[in-house]
Each structure stands twice: as C-alpha cells, then as structure tokens.
C-alpha cells in the first residue's frame, strides 16, 4: 500500500516535471554540449564530423582580429553598465522620496524597458541621423558642434552610441530593482542614525549603499547579461559596423554561423562567449554573497 502510494507520487511528479525538463534538455543542455562538440570539429551542414582538435581556438585567439574586436567590445559594453547603475540609483533615490506623483515618474522611467529592441534601435537610429536627427539638431542649435556628427558611422562613436541606447532601455529596470532594495531597508536604521547625528550623506554611505549591495550586484549581473545578449540593437542600428566597431560576440557568432555557414567555428566562438559569461557571473556571485546568481540568463 505504502509502496503503491510512493510509486504514484513519483509518477505524478515525473509527469508534472517532464514537459518543462524536456524543453530545457532539448533547448539548453543538448545545445551546450553540441556547441562544445562542434568547437572541436570540422563540420559544415550536410558534411560529416572530423576531429579538429584546438584548430578553431588557435585560429580565434591567434589570427582572428574580428574576434578580438568583438571580445573587447563586449567587455566595453559590460564595463559601461555601472554608469547606468549609478544613474538608476540616483533616479531610484528620487522616486523613493515622499513626493506627489512618484508612481507616474516610476512608470515613465520604466516604460522603455519592455519595448521591442528592434523598434527602439530604429527609433534611435533616427535620432542619431546625421542630417536631420534630433540629437545633431539640438547639438548644433546649442552651438556645441559646428558640423553634424555621423554617430553610427564613426568608428569611434558608434559603440558608445549603441551603448547609450542600451542604457536608456535598461535604466528603468535597474531603477525598479534598486527601488525594491531601498524599500527593504528598515526606516528605523535611518532614524537611529539621525539620532546619532549622522547627516544624509553619512547615512547614505553608511546605511544605504552597504545594504543595497545585493541589488547593485543584481543590476550588474543583468547588465552583464545584456552585454552578451544585445543582439537586436546592434543588428538594427549598425549591423556590427562600421568596420566591426560595434561587433559584439553575439553578432559575430550570428554572422559566422548564419551568414558564412561556418557552424563549427561559430560553435567555438559560442563556447568562449559562454565561458566568459559564466566566469564573470560566478565572480560577481561571489562578491554579492550568492544573491545575484538567481537571474534568468534565458533572455
């Protein structure tokens, strides 16, 4: 009797878990291993696998300049995220104040986050337009520049321009995370600090920042993820150009695999990207005390 109950319970659990696990098995675990296999093989669609050893990795690290560029660009993208976090922290502090209409402010700041990146890229491309773009118009009217700047066609400015858009889009999400963190700080701490004679600045650095650490790291992890996943913006705004100035690892992988049909080499690129991603996330995880790992890397 007991045994039968156990079995039924197991069957039920198995039945309930199977669909989800199957999806993750087929679309997460198998691809990961397949990528690994591809990266050590010579293979093109329709052909047979041949062992390649470290051939792809050698090519990548020794000869492939585009790989190096896209690797560095991905790191730059990632490294610029703290700037967005600082701005988001500033905004979060503002909308955390007891002021009228703060919900409206929160809504507006957050609004850009769920918008389709393809459309966002097209909109910003229009804002950046060299001849009639709003940004150039404002800068010229204000007398900051004399001749219009071709933001997305300049090797120096293209990447920062794309990153600004990425920041603009993710700012609201950071703000909400930091706001949640701020609201979980007990008010009594501030009151106690005030009694002890600590000013706002002091209590910000002594109370707010330390207690906000998990939220800040969470933001950074999300920023890291976005630097690996911002395919859409780059693809729409610059297609990785000019001269690979905005090439990220993910766009390079896409081009290598689906543009050039070099699936094996793209597999090796993916392995490198994934390793980089994993190591950075794990390091961050250490720093933040294990809180930040609980982010879905899925999107």
């Amino acid at each position, binding site marked *: 009797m007991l045994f039968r109950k156990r079995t039924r319970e197991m069957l039920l659990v198995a039945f309930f*878990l199977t669909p989800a696990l199957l999806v993750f098995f087929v679309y997460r675990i198998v691809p990961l291993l397949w990528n690994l296999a591809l990266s050590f093989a010579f293979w093109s669609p329709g052909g047979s696998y041949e062992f390649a050893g470290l051939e792809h990795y050698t090519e990548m690290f020794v000869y492939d300049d585009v790989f190096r560029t896209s690797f560095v660009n991905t790191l730059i993208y990632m490294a610029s995220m703290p700037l967005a976090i600082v701005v988001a922290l500033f905004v979060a502090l503002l909308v955390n104040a007891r002021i009228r209409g703060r919900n409206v402010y929160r809504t507006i700041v957050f609004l850009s986050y769920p918008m389709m990146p393809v459309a966002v890229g097209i909109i910003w491309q229009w804002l950046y337009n060299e*001849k009639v773009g709003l940004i150039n118009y404002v800068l010229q009217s204000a007398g900051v520049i004399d001749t219009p700047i071709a933001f997305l066609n300049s090797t120096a400015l293209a990447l920062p321009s794309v990153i600004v858009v990425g920041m603009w889009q993710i700012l609201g999400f950071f703000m909400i995370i930091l706001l949640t963190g701020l609201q979980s700080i007990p008010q009594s701490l501030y009151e106690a600090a005030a009694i002890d004679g600590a000013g706002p600045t002091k209590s910000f650095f002594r109370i707010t920042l330390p207690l906000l650490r998990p939220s800040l790291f969470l933001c950074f992890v999300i920023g890291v993820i976005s630097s690996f*996943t911002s395919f859409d913006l780059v693809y729409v705004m610059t297609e990785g150009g000019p001269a690979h100035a905005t090439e990220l690892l993910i766009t390079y992988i896409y081009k290598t695999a689906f543009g050039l049909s070099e699936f094996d080499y793209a597999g090796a690129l993916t392995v490198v990207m994934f390793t980089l991603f994993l190591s950075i996330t794990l390091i961050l995880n250490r720093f933040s005390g294990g809180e930040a790992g609980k982010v879905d890397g899925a999107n």
Partner: protein
Amino acid sequence: MQRVPRWSIHLALVVICFFMLIPFYWVLKTSVAGENIFAYPPSLVPKDPHPFYFIDVWYDIPFARFFLNSVVVVTIVIVLNLVFNAMAGYALTRDFAGKKAILFVLLSCMMIPFQATIIPAYLITAKMGLLNTYLGLALPEVSHIICILVFKANFEAVPKSLVEAARIDGVPEWKIVYKIMLPLSKPAIATNIVFSFVWTWNHFLWPLIIISDQDMQTLPLGLSYFLSYFEDTTGALYAFCVMVLAPTVFVFLMVQRQFIQGLTSGSTKG
C-alpha cells in the same frame, strides 16, 4: 533626504522623464508628420499631421499577417508556459527522491543564455522539421525556469491545511492544483503572462534564424526587413514602429502593477 527641497526633486525627475520620453515623442511625431521629414532643420512639432504613413504600412506590407503571426506565437507561448510552469512548480513543492538534483539542473540551466544555444537549437529545430513554423518559433520559450520558481514559491505559500483537507476528502491531485492552488496564485500567473508576452513579442534573434518564409515573419522580423528594403518609405517605417510598440504600451498600462512586480519578483526573489 529631508533637506532636499521637493521642487528640486520634481525638477530632476521631470528632466529625467523628458529624456526617457523624447524618443517616443520623436517617433510619434515623425510617424504623423505632414512636412518633409528629411528637411533641415527638423520641425519640433508635426505640421499638418496625417495618418497616411500608417495606411501605407497597412497596405504596403502584410502587417496584419505579421501581427497575426506574433499573436499566435505569443499565445502558444503564454498558454504552454502557464501549463508547464505551473505543473513543474507544483511538482517541486512535493518531496521526492532527486529533487535537489533537479533543482540544481534547473538553476544551472538558468545560467545558459539563449544566445549561447542558437546554433544547435537551429540544427535541432531543422531536424524536427519545424523551420518556418509557429511551433518552431514557440518551442524554445514554452517554459521559463524563473517562472517555475515563481510558481513554486507561490504554491508553497498556499496554506498546507487547505490542501490536506482536500486530500482527505479524496479530491484528485489535478483538481487540487486547478481548484485550490491556481486561484491563490494570481501573482505568479500574472508574472508568467507578463514575462512570456514581453520576451516572445520582442524576440528577434530566434525568428531571424529559423524563419525564411515571408508569410511566417513576426513583427520584429517584418520591421527589420522593412528597414533594409524600403529605404525610401522612412515615414512609414516609423509608423510601423509605433504600431509595433502600441500593444506593449497597452499591455503595460493595463497591468502596470503586476508588470513591474512580476519582473522584479522574477529577477530578484527567484
């Protein structure tokens, strides 16, 4: 924060909101502009606004078809997500051998970004013959680990006594989930719907890879093709952007609270 005067907070926030909103304003302005949009200096307000760019989008490209494709895929994803995630989340509230291992596998899978799987995922989908199909578009997204965990947390918060009482009364297990657990899990359901909608509606890379048939293109894909092919119909391009963003804005404004709660609970509490 007490010493900062209120008006300065308002001022700072108004400035920030201005920067957050200006791209939206600019695309909206361009999409109804009656003036030549390539004239310099650009006009800050639309002159003689008209809706003709929107009409061009409707007739010059199969907008309705793209829209339908997107809606179908999003619907499949939302429904399957709710079913699969609720099932898995419920299973994970039970005690069984190997639960720890399964949780570990799930948490590890969370660390695999979708972008790192595209090549084999494409090959698998091709092997299954699902290129250019709704199912092929939807399958990789029909379950999200984060949502499973949200469901799990939500189910665990349901009072045990309620479930026990039902079990003693001999209510079958699926009915317990359906009649007791789910009605008490509205936040989790909202989170699920919001996640699935935003992710799938906006998803570009996956359709770009597996869709080559124009009839099966989703909105982001249609938009990017419009960008590359119709360079002379710029006004219509921005009208298209507005038409693509409008549903998200609508959903966002309708379920704003659940939206923000869902996104934050999904990413912070896990």
